[in-house]
């Protein structure tokens, strides 16, 4: 009898524990908050010694493979006092491979935000502003650093700005209006990589929620970067089927391009746009497909010209070509027409928190492509495990075919705290 009673008490205690929730840790939030993640990445790259960009990156190293270890730490913190808040994010990385050791720490954000009421916010400081609806690219990301289409969810460094946000909700067809003006100074020591001309740049975004459609109208003044206007939208065509798009018109874009072996600057009005779809199937497979066009990218002939010169250059010419590459030729997705496809399956084989995915980026100008299968598991508390492999394919003088590696495997362990 005593055993039965003891068992009942144990079971009751377990049930009570299962349904217990200590609220005290949450209802009185501390004015100080600190969280972030620590990350370890191990990369193996199979190098393509015949590729043009191998010569630029690895010269005479003679290596056919490269192992790289990366440790990263990202800390985000804030201090809140009444209607004001100071917030910041710091990101540091240390990487080691068989060729070099390299470490750097950057302050991604540090800003003061004041919110006198729910509809008004003023922010001053370094802030990562993110505009647009695209997953892999953002033609209307006028005041942000470009994201890597291979890993679009990585945090990015912001710019020093002064910004405001005014929200007005009215109901009806035009449900919400929000206006976000931004000032972005460029001097020799502040935001010096935003553009060449120093001065005060202005930008603005007007958001509308109109009949279940998200619409943004965007603008950047002519200053450190050429002036531009843009529009984006996102809406659901069906509960499981979303469509989004972006369009930007850039006035007097200046492109540095190789012409008959010399660098020249061409000036022209450029258009860039993106159209994307996101579909969730009944089996919880998410399909994302995006088409991206950018007049500012290099044509197939321009890219082949650069890669051909690298391919046949003497050792003495490589440093010069390396610096030419850094003006744009070697940046990710540097050409004009791309398609992005991502297929992710949630919880296959009844394995909760397990998401295998496949991402493909195709260059429609030269028919080269990258393919990235991925396994993601988030079932261990605070730990995320991601295993990725990337295969590149294309002609020797195509964008992906010219990359210094043709295969890459990466294991990433991320611990959040």
């Amino acid at each position, binding site marked *: 009898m005593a055993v039965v009673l003891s068992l009942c008490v144990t079971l009751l205690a377990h049930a009570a524990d299962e349904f217990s*929730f200590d609220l005290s840790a949450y209802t009185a939030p501390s004015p100080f908050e600190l969280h972030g*993640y620590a990350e370890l990445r191990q990369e193996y790259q199979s190098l393509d010694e015949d590729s043009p960009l191998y010569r630029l990156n690895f010269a005479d190293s003679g290596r056919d493979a490269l192992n790289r270890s990366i440790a990263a730490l990202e800390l985000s913190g804030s201090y809140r006092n009444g209607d004001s808040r100071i917030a910041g994010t710091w990101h540091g990385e240390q990487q080691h491979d068989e060729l070099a050791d390299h470490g750097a720490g950057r302050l991604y954000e540090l800003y003061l935000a004041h919110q006198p009421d729910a509809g008004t916010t003023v922010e001053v400081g370094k802030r990562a502003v993110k505009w647009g609806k695209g997953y892999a690219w953002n033609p209307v990301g006028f005041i942000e650093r470009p994201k890597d289409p291979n890993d679009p*969810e990585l945090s990015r460094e912001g710019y020093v700005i002064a910004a405001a946000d005014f929200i007005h909700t009215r109901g009806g067809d035009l449900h919400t209006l929000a206006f976000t003006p931004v000032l972005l100074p460029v001097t020799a020591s502040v935001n010096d990589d935003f553009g060449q001309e120093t001065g005060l740049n202005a930008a603005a975004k007007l958001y509308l929620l109109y009949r279940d459609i998200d619409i943004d109208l965007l603008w950047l003044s002519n200053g450190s970067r050429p002036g531009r206007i843009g529009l984006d939208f996102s809406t659901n065509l069906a509960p499981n089927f979303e469509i989004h798009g972006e369009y930007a018109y850039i006035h007097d874009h200046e492109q540095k391009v190789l012409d008959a072996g010399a660098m020249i600057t061409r000036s022209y009005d450029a258009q860039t746009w993106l159209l994307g779809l996101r579909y969730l199937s009944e089996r919880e497979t998410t399909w994302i497909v995006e088409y991206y066009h950018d007049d500012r990218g290099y044509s197939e002939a321009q890219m082949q010209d650069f890669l051909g010169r690298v391919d046949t250059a003497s050792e003495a010419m490589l440093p010069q070509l390396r610096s030419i590459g850094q003006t744009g030729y070697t940046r990710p997705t540097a050409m004009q027409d791309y398609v992005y496809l991502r297929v992710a399956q949630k919880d296959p084989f009844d394995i909760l928190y397990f998401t295998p995915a496949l991402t493909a980026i195709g260059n429609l100008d030269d028919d080269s492509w990258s393919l990235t299968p991925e396994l993601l598991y988030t079932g261990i508390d*605070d730990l995320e495990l991601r295993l990725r492999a990337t295969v590149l394919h294309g002609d020797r003088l195509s964008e992906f075919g010219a990359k210094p590696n043709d295969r890459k495997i990466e294991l990433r362990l991320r611990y959040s705290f």
Partner: protein
Amino acid sequence: MKHLAVTLLLLVVAPRVYAIDAADLLRQVDRNLQPESYEMYRKLINIEPDGRRKEFVLYSVKKGGDKVLALFLDPPSEKGRSTLRLGDNMWLYIPNVGKPLRITSLQSVIGGVFNNADILRVDFAAEYDAESLEETSNGYTLQLKAKNTTVAYDRLVMQVDRKHKVPVIIEAYAASGMLIKTLRYSQMKDFGDGRPRPSVLETDSPLYKDYKSIMIYASIKARDLPDEVFSLNYMGRVDDLRGK
């Protein structure tokens, strides 16, 4: 002839009266479950067949029949994520991504058996029409039909407790007639306004064999908030509402 006319009249009028009663009971159920506008703290627990658990803590605010905003406070990997629902529209904000993405009611931002419609639940009356009401020995059975195809479940069969007028069991069906999940409300608790409400919601699904998800309500307080809080531009600042 007179009897026939009265009988015919009753046949025509009775279902209408019954339908009004059903709609009225559904409105009572909505208000007895939670105030029309509130702030809430919840813990969501996903329990796997081997007993492993994953827990999430959410702070949520709701206004009117169809506006809900939720912020993840735990675990650290989810901290700062927020979800917004305005009627049929749902968005997810991830701090690193930095801009809200449209999501659907059928997905789940936490994995497990609860989907986004369960996590960002608006009033039942905002999404469902009460088609019929049947009195049973323990209470009532409400048959609910989705108002449109954007609603997560096509049909609900809701067992309602007679005394408290709150759901006890809800069976959710797809348009095909397949049972998608069963929701069980339990452990009545006074959250401070003198009106007992269920404090635990458990769910299981034939689609997730041997998995279970539990929602524990720790605090539900009436709170009126400006409409501007329920907007995309506010999703990165939800934490500013806490403790105010």
